[in-house]
């Protein structure tokens, strides 16, 4: 079966006024299948947001290819792009800025159906009511405005709008990062319910490794524009093969004082280098506790290790879990 989303060798460079271009994404390859949720994690500036923007054609790739439901995004004419955007819907971080404050939420949720001529009048109202119910709101909420809702409710509204066209692919970009803990749990529960009731593929972009583990089937880790590890969830969290993945996991503060304080510290020295001047060889070698001369010279190739795909010269030397 063809994947719903196929990203193949994606490169996105942004030209700079002075100096070399910013290499935001530098050769990223992955697929997402129907009914599958892939987590895309990494720290600020790693390129995860640029990848998601390139998928829906919001930025032009410099190289490589993105296919949504088999259709190439690059070079797509307006009609194809319109079709792609019906198949791929986005949920952004901040629901407050994703909704038009002057539009009732019923109109906002119904708009995708209306502009594509899929429903109108009474049928449209019924579809909107069903969508509201599906995300845990009530049909009578349709006539209210965004400011009358809390942050968590607004994110439900944004999700309802994204589901309106029954997309094949749902892109969630930091969908719970702006929410308080108690509200975040409500949205994550909703998300897990929707995974079960819909066949769609989902790309879940987040910096929060605990949240990603909670909702994703596979996880891709990015660093400085590169994918450095891609693995099924349990493999990634129990046997992380890349030293960066290990450092990232060690840095997540666990809400359990006994566990957290007993945890071995794997402090990463220094900071993420500039994507305008990425290091030679492995991009992580400047901060890697395992780096050797070879790492400074040669870019590590993608290798399969069990279920994991990893780009590290020393991936076999993973300490036992």
């Amino acid at each position: 079966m063809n994947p719903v989303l196929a990203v193949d060798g994606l490169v996105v460079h942004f030209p700079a006024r002075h100096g070399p271009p910013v290499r935001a994404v530098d050769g990223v390859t992955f697929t997402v299948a129907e009914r599958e949720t892939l987590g895309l994690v990494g720290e600020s500036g790693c390129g995860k947001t640029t990848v998601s923007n390139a998928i829906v054609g919001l930025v032009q790739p410099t190289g490589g290819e993105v296919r949504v439901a088999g259709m190439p995004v690059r070079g797509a004419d307006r009609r194809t792009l319109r079709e792609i955007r019906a198949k791929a819907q986005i949920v952004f971080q901040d629901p407050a800025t994703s909704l038009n404050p002057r539009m009732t939420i019923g109109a906002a949720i119904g708009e995708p159906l209306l502009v594509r001529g899929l429903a109108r009048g009474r049928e449209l109202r019924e579809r909107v009511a069903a969508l509201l119910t599906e995300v845990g709101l009530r049909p009578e909420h349709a006539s209210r405005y965004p400011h009358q809702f809390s942050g968590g409710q607004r994110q439900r509204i944004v999700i309802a709008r994204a589901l309106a066209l029954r997309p094949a692919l749902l892109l969630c970009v930091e969908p719970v990062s702006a929410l308080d803990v108690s509200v975040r749990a409500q949205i994550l529960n909703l998300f897990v319910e929707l995974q079960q009731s819909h066949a769609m593929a989902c790309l879940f972009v987040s910096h929060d490794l605990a949240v990603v583990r909670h909702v994703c089937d596979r996880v891709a880790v990015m660093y400085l524009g590169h994918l450095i590890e891609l693995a099924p969830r349990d493999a990634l969290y129990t046997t992380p093969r890349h030293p960066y993945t290990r450092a990232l996991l060690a840095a997540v503060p666990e809400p359990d004082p006994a566990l957290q304080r007993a945890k071995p510290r794997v402090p990463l020295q220094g900071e993420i280098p500039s994507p305008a001047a990425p290091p030679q060889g492995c991009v992580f070698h400047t901060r890697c506790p395992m780096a050797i001369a070879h790492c400074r010279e040669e870019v590590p190739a993608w290798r399969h290790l069990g279920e994991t795909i990893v780009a590290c010269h020393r991936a076999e030397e993973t300490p036992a879990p």
Partner: protein
Amino acid sequence: MSAALEVSDLRLAIGGVNVVDGIAFSVAPGEVMALVGESGCGKSLTAQALLRLLPRQVRQTGGRILLEGEDITALAERRLRQIRGRRISMIFQEPQAALDPLSPVGAQVREASGLASAAAREAVRRMLAEVGIADPDRRIDQYPFELSGGMCQRVMIASALISRPAVLVADEPTTALDVTIQAQILDLLRRLAAERGTAIVLITHDMGVVADIAERVAVMYAGRIAEIGPTAAVFSRPRHPYTALLLAAIPRLADEPKSRLAVIEGSVPQPSEYGAGCRFVGRCPFADARCNAEPPPLLETDEGHFSACWHTERLA
């Protein structure tokens, strides 16, 4: 040992409503005490009150703040200026926004030191080195835009601590930082508290950060302390339903993936919705008539562990 900071019955009002309503806690020298809670719980207002930096529309309607035994609530602005930065300092969430973009970072740390220029440069250099800035001789003359977010936070910490204040108020100091940088900054704060004997009041929404660094924690909800106690006790045996539900609502690395997370129904009430009784009443599974009518007092349930709930005993 006497407390570096002691807050009793702090009340802050906006309009006619106490948005901070009877907060009390103390912090010992070298101790890290966390105030944790969700948006609107009053943790940041409490932090601002500690330095008398409250927005104009907020009025203090009660309580005392003792800094090394001295009540600073009634001090004139002139006296307060002598205290801020010297005996109590603050660092903020966005270090780049808190630093002056037009001034080299070394000059900003020196300004906070109050030292004359001859001795100052060396003192600043040493302080930058102490907060873990590599190559301080070069960094000292650079501007904030030349430094990363993590490094700017180190500069802020340097300028906050160079005068050896008794208390450091850290308002979400790692929220804008990446996890690997956050881990570095938390290690730094922990080390500085221990080595310099600085009392740290850490304001955060992140239970993971609390678990990592705080010796004691006060869980705030809607302007009140729901529960306060040693971090290990509060996490392993929460005595307030809000804390218990909040802890269960966090996805953890050890949980079953895609399992249902505990949910606190509804959302945090607006100040205009506060009733006469417990402010958690609308979302609490234990709520009854008494909870609606009377605010529960903060009572000791175990040694040093206090909870404000009429139904503490139902949390086995």
